Every structure is written in C-alpha cells, then in structure tokens.
C-alpha cells in the first residue's frame, strides 16, 4: 500500500480496511517522510479530511477515511534518542513496537505495555491507549508516555505533556487519532535483565474457578491473561488456561543462555496463503482445536522459561493470519464490565456458548485501575475479547444484544476492535464523549481530522 508522498498530485485512491477486513472504503494514502510533509498534508487536506494510520492492526474502521486522505505514518520511523540510564526513548510515531524491542532489549529495556502483537506503531499504541497483560499492574500505554508531538487539525504542531496540557493529552490517549496526528513521543521504558519470561500455567475448570484464581493471585504476577474456550458448555462453561509470569531474572536462565541473556529471537512462519476457502473455521474445526488446546495445557506448571515473543505475541509467528477468515472477514468483540458485574459476564459467556459462535480461544483478563484517557477503554473489572467470522448468520443482531448487556452493566466495548457499534450506545459507554467532541472542535475548527469510525459513530 505505501505510496510516495504526494499531497499536491492527485494520488490514486486505494481501498483500505482494518485488520478484520470488513467494510472497505477508498482513500488517498499519503506517506509523509518528514514532519513538514505531514503538516502540509493536514493543512492542504480536502473537505473529507485526513486520519493517521499506523500498521493497520485496529480491527475496524478507525484508520480509514472514505473519500479523503489516510496518512500512512510508517514512513516516519526514526528513533531519535535513547536514554539507556533512565530508560526513556524519543521516537517517531511510525516506529513499531517490534522495532523498539529489537533496539531496546539488548540495552536491557522493554516497552512498558505490549499488546498481543508487536506489529503496532507507537502512534497506534497512543491512539488506542493500548493495554497489555500487565494492565492490573502498569495501566495502559499512555500512562508511560511523557510527551507527544501532536499535529492538530488547525495545522499547528504542539508539544503536549500530561502536566502542561492535560486535556489535550488525555483526549489524545485513546482518542483514536481524532485529536490530531502524533508525530513523535517520549516513552518511559521498563528495565529487564533477560529476554526470557518465567511462566506459570494452570487450568481453570469453569468460569467461576477462573475468576476466583485471577482475583486471588493476579497481584503476584506482572503479566496475567487467560485463554478461554467459549465453545465449552454446561459444567465446562468458561474453562480456561491461565498463563501468568514475569521477565526472568538473569539467575533463572540456564548457563547456555546466560552469554546472551538479552537476545531477541522471535520466530516467524510463512504467511497464510492468499486465497482460502470461506468457512474454513466452522464450529467443528474450531471446537476441536479448542478442545485439543485445553487438553494439551498442563494442569499446573510453575516457572517454565519461555521466549518473550511466544509469551506476548504467539500470533505474530504467522504473518497475515487474518486471511484465514476468508473473504467475508471477521470482527473482534472486546468488552469490559466492572467488578461487581460478574453476573453480567457469566450471562454473556453463557450466551456466546449457546450461540455456538465459532470462536477460537478468546481472551479474558482482569483490568486494574481505570486510565485517565477520556476515551480509554480499560475500567477496573473483566475484559473479554473474541474473534468471530463476520459471515456467521445472525451475528450483527446478536452483538447488538451483547452491547445492551454490556452497557446496562456499566461496561463498554473497545473502539480499536470495533466495526459495528451503534452511535447511541457509544454515548452510554463513554461518558466523556461530549467533552471529547468539544475539544475536537476547539483544536480542529475545519474538521480536518476525521475517520470512517468517527463518521459511523458520530464522534
């Protein structure tokens, strides 16, 4: 997709989708190679505006802008400064977390928050205020951001810090790119002694067992997540495998690994083939897979050493795995409900089970404190994420019903994964939406920054 930068020549419009490959729309994709080019692209954008795009890992239409321009930020990929003493990095927004890991691990530093894939940019991490398996300890990404260089819709570039401009900063954190284009950021890092993880694995027999284990023990681990089998029903409803761990200290490594304790060695398999038959992921095959995968997990295992990449990003080993869902694409549904709303979670898990959604291992995590971002997703409680083929009959209406359950329980769905929420439900889920809209008009009177998601949801 990358196209040379051409704000003035009318570059061909191309079709753009998110990771879920639904709802394509066409836009001029511009790839600024300097801040000046980005500024020009915003100042000179046409009536349909522009939006920043990182590596396109948001599932829905957040980084699309029909009829307008999409700024592919991966051309701004310089790491400007690394403070290896205090653990700070200053880099362009188009730098990926993968790249940061390659560069920083050998120096003994790790990104403060890592999502389920390393192929996201720093700009995308800020735009969605991403969370990782350490949310209960570290909060989401923007808590570790000291400053951002933000190009707002009025064409001005501002250095924004949480101290000096808290409103603009916390509206940008999780603001899905709608407050402006992040050009660069200063991010606080986390020290590590090795590139290995020590991991405890255990099985939970059902949802209540799982919640009890997470509640009792999560505080002992920096990282915690559970893979849950949503096709299991009856007494097995919500059975899961918990994996929790921390960065391995040097003395936990076997001697053969101690020479190069900080080496970063992600494995990589060939990409999924381009054309796959639809309906490959039927209920039967997914059910069998989930069964196999639950059985293969140890009932309980402590202190296993694992590569960082297999602990954090198992899916990155299979590039373009999103193609396995065929032409119709897929949606990811991720929601959170607060503590005290366990009954709502149980009900939703039961409903998904009885609907027989052919959903591979879904992920359940217990969030820590809420983050200050106005549209940041996490609130203290339970978050569940599942992938579903978009072609599943009745799915649209079913997810609408789940939205209502989630909203009634005071919860919300995650915009970085969304491709289908109703605008009226959005306002119920994100109480600061009005303030967010006001702020946008203040910094962007022309409405130069917009996206398909913003249009669909009336943000």
């Amino acid at each position, binding site marked *: 997709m990358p196209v040379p930068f051409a704000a003035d020549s009318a570059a061909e419009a191309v079709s753009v989708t998110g990771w879920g490959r639904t709802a394509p729309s066409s836009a001029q994709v511009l790839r600024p190679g300097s801040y000046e080019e980005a500024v020009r692209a915003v100042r000179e954008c046409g009536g349909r505006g522009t939006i920043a795009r990182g590596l396109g890992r948001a599932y829905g239409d957040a980084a699309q802008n029909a009829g307008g321009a999409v700024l592919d930020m991966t051309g701004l990929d310089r790491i400007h400064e690394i403070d290896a003493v205090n653990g700070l990095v200053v880099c362009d927004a188009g730098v990926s977390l993968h790249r940061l890991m390659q560069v920083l691990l050998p120096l003994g530093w790790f990104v403060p928050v890592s999502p389920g894939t390393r192929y996201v940019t720093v700009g995308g991490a800020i735009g969605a205020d991403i969370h990782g398996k350490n949310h209960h300890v570290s909060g989401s990404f923007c808590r570790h951001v000291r400053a951002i260089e933000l190009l707002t819709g009025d064409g001005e570039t501002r250095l924004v810090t949480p101290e000096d401009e808290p409103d603009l900063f916390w509206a940008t954190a999780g603001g899905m790119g709608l407050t402006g284009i992040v050009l660069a950021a200063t991010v606080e890092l986390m020290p590590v002694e090795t590139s290995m993880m020590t991991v405890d694995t255990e099985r939970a027999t059902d949802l209540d067992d799982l919640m009890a284990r997470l509640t009792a023990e999560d505080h002992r681990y920096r990282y915690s997540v559970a893979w849950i089998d949503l096709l299991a029903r009856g007494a097995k409803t919500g059975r899961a495998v918990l994996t929790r761990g921390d960065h391995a200290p040097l003395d936990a490594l076997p001697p053969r690994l101690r020479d190069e304790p900080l080496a970063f060695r992600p494995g990589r398999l060939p990409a999924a083939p381009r054309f796959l038959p639809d309906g490959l992921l039927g209920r039967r095959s997914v059910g069998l897979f989930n069964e196999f995968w639950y059985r293969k997990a140890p009932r309980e295992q402590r202190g296993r050493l694992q590569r960082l990449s297999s602990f954090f990003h198992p899916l990155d080993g299979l590039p373009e795995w999103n193609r396995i869902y065929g032409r119709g694409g897929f949606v990811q549904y991720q929601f959170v409900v607060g503590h005290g709303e366990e009954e709502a979670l149980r009900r939703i898990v039961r409903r998904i089970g009885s609907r027989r959604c052919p959903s591979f291992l879904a992920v359940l995590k217990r969030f820590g404190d809420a983050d200050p971002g106005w549209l940041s997703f996490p609130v203290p409680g339970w978050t569940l994420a599942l992938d579903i083929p*978009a072609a599943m009959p009745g799915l*649209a209406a079913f997810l609408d019903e789940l939205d209502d359950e989630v909203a009634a329980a005071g919860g919300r769905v995650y915009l970085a994964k969304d491709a289908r929420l109703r605008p009226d439900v959005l306002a119920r889920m994100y109480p600061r939406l009005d303030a967010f809209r006001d702020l946008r008009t203040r910094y962007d009177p022309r409405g130069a920054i917009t996206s398909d998601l913003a249009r*669909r949801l009336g943000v």
Partner: protein
Amino acid sequence: MKDAFGAPQSLLILGGTSEIGLATARRLITRRTRTVFLAGRPSEGLESAAESLRSIGAQVHTVAFDALDPGSHETALGKVFAEGDVDMVLLAFGVLGDQARDEQEPLAAVQVAQVNYTGAVSASLVCAAALQAQGHGSLVVLSSVAGERARRVNFIYGSSKAGLDAFCQGLADAMHGSGVHVMTVRPGFVHTRMTAGLPPAPLAATPDEVATAIELGLRRRSGTIWVPGALRVVMAGIRHLPRPLFRRLPV
C-alpha cells in the same frame, strides 16, 4: 458509514413508493438505517410511504425525482448527497408496461425503455459519481430475471431490464477498487402492485424476501444476487434451452 456487516446508516431510494424498495427500507431500519431519502414523483403515495417509515423510527425526507426527466437528475440527486454521506442507493423505479398495448403504440413502448433503461442509466451514473467522491457506499439496482432471456409475453420490459443489467455489470467493474459496491438484484416474480392481477410464476417471492436477500448481499458484498437464490440455477438452464422449446414453455 456501513458497518462490518454492510448495514447502511443512510439510504436513498429512487422510486420511493416501490413496494420492494419500502420493504428493504423497513428491513434496514431494524438494523442501522436512521436516515432515508425517498425520491419519486410527488404524490400522496410518496408522502404516506415517508410517514410509514417515520412511524418505525427513521428520519425520512422526500425528494422530487422523475426517471423520465434525466436532465434534472444531477440537480435533484445532488441535493441529497449535499446533505451528507449516503451509504446506500437503491434503484427501485421501473414500469412493467402493457405488452399488448405497447406493441401497438411504439411511443408507449419507448416510455418503458426510457424509465427502465435510460432513466436508470442517468440516475445510476449520477449516484455512482457521488458515491465515488465520498469513497464508499453501495448502489443496489433492481434488475429482473425478465432481462435474462426475452419472453414473448413481456419482451419490451425484458429488453429494457436486459440493457439495465448489462449496464450494471459494466458499472460494477468500473467501480471496482473505488470503494463503491454495485450490486445487481435479479428477482423473479414478486407479489407487488406491479404484478397484481398477473398469474404468479413458479418461485414467486414477496417483497420481504427480496429485502432479506439484499441485506445478505450487502453483508457479502455480492455483485449479483437472484431472488429466490434457486433462480440462478433455473435461469442458467433456461438460458440455454433451444428456442423452439423455450417458445412453448408455459411461463
């Protein structure tokens, strides 16, 4: 914007009193559609169609539009697009004509062709350009199985639909990659006022069935759909029937 399942939030129906069109609107209003523009010749029927959609919760506007006056299409439809994005255009106008009379009165036959073909060509081109400018949207065109193979009993209508159908196939290719989705709908016999009093053909459908098929086609981003789906196979057979045999078919 359409969502991941192709459900539009705003809808423009050309032929705002069409029974198939209104059944589709009702169906889509239960999903995501909030704004509907009904374009048609001003009439009480058009206003009451608007009222019926308002009563189920949509914001409805009526727009004066006459297929027989292509010179006015750009202005009339341009106003709709100026109000905001249109996620889906449904081209639902059409006339069946009266075959016996039309054979006797060439000018009446010409009018069938002007509504169903020339008028549709003009309106489709205007809408396709507007959709292309906004970078997204579906243009759904009601063609007909009658265009698949001309029949003695309605070949004037059939030939106009054949022209429209061929036009849409080409337009779909022209729009490929532009973010605009063009979908040709080929219903068989549908029970509406257009067919009232005619003997129903085999595999007859209701407007609601057409609406359901359109909703599914949007989700799948289909290029062509048949309603009911079985017609795809039936018509593949009929198309290749030797002419002497075809002429004697009872349908």
